[in-house]
């Protein structure tokens, strides 16, 4: 195994170990899958199935870059009065909204 590959493997292992700590409040695996499905299928009604935007704006990493997490979470939970964005707090918790924001900022890696 070349040194570079070993290093990247080690890095991957480190990230994998670190991940649970970074996501202490992350939803369960089942819930994560559910949230991503909802994000693509139902948020996708306005933002597009690929999240590149439709009647609503793009939710791709480039579009969300630099936007404040708390603001985005607030928009998810409470919607935007006067605009079509509805409040989702009836089925998405605060922690889940934070998790979604982080996932969207990284770019979704689920299998479509």
């Amino acid at each position, binding site marked *: 195994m070349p040194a570079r590959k070993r290093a990247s493997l080690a890095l991957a292992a480190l990230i994998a170990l670190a991940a649970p700590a970074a996501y202490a409040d992350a939803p369960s695996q089942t819930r994560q899958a559910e949230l991503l499905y909802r994000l693509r*299928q*139902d948020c996708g*009604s306005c933002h597009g199935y*690929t999240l590149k935007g439709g009647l609503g704006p793009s939710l791709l990493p480039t579009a969300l870059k630099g936007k404040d997490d708390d603001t985005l979470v607030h928009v998810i939970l409470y919607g935007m009065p006067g605009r079509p964005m509805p409040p989702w707090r009836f089925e998405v918790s605060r922690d889940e909204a934070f998790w979604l924001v982080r996932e969207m900022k990284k770019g979704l890696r689920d299998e479509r």
Partner: protein
Amino acid sequence: MNARTRRSVALCLSFVLFGFAFAGAARAEGTEWRATRGTGDLGLIVERTKGRILIIETTRRSVLKRLGGFGDLSHASAVFSRDQRYAYIFGRDGGLTKVDLVAGRIVERVMQAGNSIGGAISQDGRLVAVSNYKPGGVRVFDAETLKLVADIPAKDEDGNPSKVVGLVDAPGQRFVFSLYDAGEIWIADFAGGTKPKITRYPGIGTLPYDGLITPDGRAYVAGLFGEDGLAKLDLWHPEKGVARILAGYGRGEKKLPVYKMPHLEGWAAADGKLFLPAIGRHELLVVDARSWKQVGRIKVHGQPIFAVARPDGRQIWVNFAHPRNDTLQVIDVATMKIIKEFKPGKAILHMEFTPRGEQVWVSVRDADRVDVYDTRTFERLAAIKAEKPSGIFLSARAHKTGL
């Protein structure tokens, strides 16, 4: 060999050769496809997440072919050529694809924009128009070759670009559409050829989210997200401008959140009345088709998405937005009562009637299934496997204004 025998030998030979050529062509397709098939009972189902369509027929209720290669088909729709042989499919990613329903293959495909929402085919069948979010506007293509004929960027009076929604065809070789951000209705008149004459109607209201044209092609109506009311343009008298109808239909009540925008296309006209999804209310609005005054409202299960009339006008079928999208309701127009409620599965996205209304095809996205119901007995006639099905489009649309 005399001249007559020679002629008949030549004739026989040419028949044989023609036969071989024909058989060869049929074999080349590699399927049971026959050039002689009629297309009046054909249609297609969109598999939104896989970029595929199913070509279906409604006589035996079967899938004839699954075709891929359409790109992003979330929120895809289709129109049909006037001979009902070709379907034009509008993808979300700006793809415009022409499909030969008889041969079961893609014949033309262009990427015409970055982000698009739907399209229409002209009265004479020679132009296909696509409405785009990005770059906002309408692009018009030759229906035969898909070559660009006209580009109509949609900008408000200050030059700000706008998303285009509610694009329909209208009599007189016109297309009508609405500008979501700008709050305008535009008519693009192609009667003079390929250079359209544009008429703009600014200030029609806040955030028009979709539009429709009445089945006779006379009235264009835009639904407004930003206010209680709709904007109506009489295409017999376009010089009179746009009028507000159903102003304040919510009577000041607080609006409920809308988890999916209603669709106005395929709206319900029955018994001299029109049935429209209210926005932000769990109701259908009932409008007198002559006076355009509200004559009633019907409480329904959730935020209505589609309210479509069975072709004979006796029933209205309604589906709903998330999270109440597991239910279908049927309204009897004679009594204005809900006579049937189904729960076929989660995410009922679309309903399409056969041309004479004896069947309705219903896509149940989360169940990966399209159900076919008898509209008289409500018995389920068939369940067709389809992966995340959304729109269902039957070729009978070819002969209907606005569809």
